[in-house]
């Protein structure tokens, strides 16, 4: 009888932990899939039995209603599918602008909150405590109705230096109309941007090698402004302006920021900035004071200490909660429907849903959109977080 070789002995598949775990996970997956499939089929069957139309065919039907503001061409003759994109772009616009503005204001406030200047620190504190403790919907209503009521009717508009006009229908401004040759100016701008990127790389390498700093910011700014400007002048100013004109009811022509957008953007920005300020403060305070002292010992002044030593280290603490705030802001933008800003929820889940009555499809699509936007923001922020995370050497 040969000695029992436990190493190579065949184990029955039902006793093999690996096989077992795969089989059970497969069963779980299939039953989960079956579960959702059943719900889906059930919903469809039940809706059909009750005479409720299902399917996505409605997306190709003519919408027949007007939308206040659209970034892409739209009128009543376009389809319901088009209203989806009109709403989506309006949502992305307010969320994108809101994120940028809230970040800028939030960072400034967070730093101000830690200022040695008593007045600045307390002012920032009062702002943060007031703004983040009032429900957002109330703030949106406040800015919309309070500000709207304070603004004059179109005939009594407030002019700003003959360029802007402000009244309760919005902020009117001359719209640029590019003429032939303007594309060269745009090309010059693109060239300038590429130049700046190259310059930044070169300056960094030079500093790493020689230790000599280069005034990157000032030179880049000059590049970005001067190069397109020179081309603009050389081409003989190929740009005219379409000025808004007072008509029977209000101003027509030109560009316009509707009060709904202004109120919503303002409220979202101010509200989220208060939270971001606290996150920034926490991040800065998480960097030990020894770092500041070390920077001072190296002879760095206050500005560079903050910019080169404190902020980069605090970013590791700031980024994850900051991502949550970005997601909150994006989702909160759906409160637009309360004041009539034509975002995705107002246009698509509001009017379109009601005209077609296809609640399941439309609510599903809208949820999928918010999920996609949120996951995209998360992904970008996580990638950035990974890049700046502390690398142990």
């Amino acid at each position: 009888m040969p000695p029992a070789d436990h190493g190579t002995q065949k184990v029955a598949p039902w006793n093999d932990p690996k096989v077992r775990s795969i089989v059970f996970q497969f069963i779980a997956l299939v039953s989960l899939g079956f579960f959702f499939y059943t719900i889906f089929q059930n919903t469809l069957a039940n809706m059909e039995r009750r005479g409720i139309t299902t399917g996505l065919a409605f997306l190709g039907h003519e919408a027949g209603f007007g939308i206040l503001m659209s970034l892409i061409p739209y009128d009543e003759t376009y389809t319901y599918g088009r209203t989806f994109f009109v709403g989506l772009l309006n949502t992305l616009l307010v969320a994108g602008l809101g994120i940028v503005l809230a970040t800028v204001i939030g960072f400034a406030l967070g730093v101000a909150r830690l200022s040695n200047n008593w007045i600045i620190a307390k002012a920032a504190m009062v702002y943060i405590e007031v703004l983040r403790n009032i429900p957002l919907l109330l703030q949106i209503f406040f800015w919309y109705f309070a500000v709207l009521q304070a603004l004059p009717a179109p005939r009594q508009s407030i002019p700003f230096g003959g360029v802007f006009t402000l009244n309760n229908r919005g902020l009117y401004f001359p719209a640029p109309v590019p003429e032939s040759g303007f594309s060269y100016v745009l090309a010059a701008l693109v060239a300038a941007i590429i130049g700046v990127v190259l310059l930044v790389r070169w300056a960094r390498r030079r500093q790493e090698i020689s230790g000599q700093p280069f005034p990157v910011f000032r030179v880049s700014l000059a590049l970005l402004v001067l190069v397109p400007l020179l081309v603009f002048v050389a081409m003989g100013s190929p740009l005219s302006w379409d000025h808004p004109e007072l008509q029977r009811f209000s101003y027509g022509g030109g560009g316009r920021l509707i009060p709904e957008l202004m109120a919503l953007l303002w409220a979202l920005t101010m509200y989220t900035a208060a939270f971001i300020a606290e996150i920034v403060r926490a991040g800065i305070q998480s960097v030990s004071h020894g770092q500041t002292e070390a920077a001072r010992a190296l002879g760095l002044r206050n500005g560079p200490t903050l910019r080169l030593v404190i902020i980069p280290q605090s970013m590791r603490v700031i980024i994850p909660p900051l991502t949550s705030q970005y997601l909150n802001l994006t989702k909160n933008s759906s409160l637009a429907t309360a004041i009539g800003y034509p975002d995705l929820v107002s246009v698509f889940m509001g009017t379109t849903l009601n005209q077609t009555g296809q609640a399941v499809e439309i609510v599903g699509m809208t949820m999928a959109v918010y999920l996609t936007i949120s996951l995209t923001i998360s992904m970008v922020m996580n990638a950035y977080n990974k890049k700046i995370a502390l690398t142990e050497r």
Partner: protein
Amino acid sequence: MKRITIGLLGAAVSLSMTLGSVQAGTLDDVKRKGHLTCGVSTGLPGFSNANSKNVWSGLDVDVCRAVAAAVLGDAGKVKYTPLTAKERFTALQSGEIDMLSRNTTWTHTRDTSLGINFAGVNYYDGQGFMVSKGLGVKSATELNGAAVCIQAGTTTELNLADYFSEKGMKYKAVVFDTSDQSVKGFESGRCDVLTSDQSQLYALRIKLVNPGNAVVLPEVISKEPLGPVVRQGDDAWFNVVKWSLFAMVNAEEMSITSANVDSKKSSSNPGAKRLLGGDAGGKLGLSSDWAYNIIKQVGNYGEAFERNVGKGSPLKIGRGLNALWSKGGLQYAPPVR
């Protein structure tokens, strides 16, 4: 793991069963619950509006009360669910409410693709415009370029687009969730025009701080037959709601009012006898005094009209299209026989 899987399957099966059983049987459901759940507006004077004590009244509310009186014998046994225009059909489809009586326009799309049935028309309306006096606008044809405040999810939105494109005019629609918000938008000067069904415009005008500053333009740009709505596929309940409304109209035609219903009940008029007693109720699955209860507790259609939107109300709307057919209007009910 196995237990979870079985649990999931069980949940799926039970879910599919509940989904199936929501249908049919609303009449038995209401009788068993002992109250009627009725979807109404979030506040529209004359049609469905709650006072400071949360007592609802209005022409649409009276339809709910009539159905409750017919089914349960007590017009007070109604629970009201205020709904925005956007929420109303989903609330009905999902079974959250037993019926919808919320100034809802009967249209082809709604009737055919939402799984709902319109049980008649309790108010013939049409869309109009309200502007502030200061603008000096005399007709809707002068509205080119105006900003228009409007409530989301209404037929009004579509009519507005049709009217302006037909006239070759441009407009800016500012869309709000509730009629309260759209009135606020109009008042704050965000819009030049408020558009809605004309009856609503009169009702909303009372809510303005200064009603004298607003005028309703003469143009009526659409047909808006408003009526109660039920779920499709529940014919017994559909009949109950339909005939509760018809009973009110028939009562007015036979001059039966809440005041004289007792004496009419014992009169020899065969039509009145059939309506107030007889087997009409039994065929609907109701008691024989179903119509008596409606008329005694709610009144006939004319009474409800005058009390809520007509002479007895601040709205002072004339009968117009809503007069009986015999008096030059459109209100007509099939005979009870």
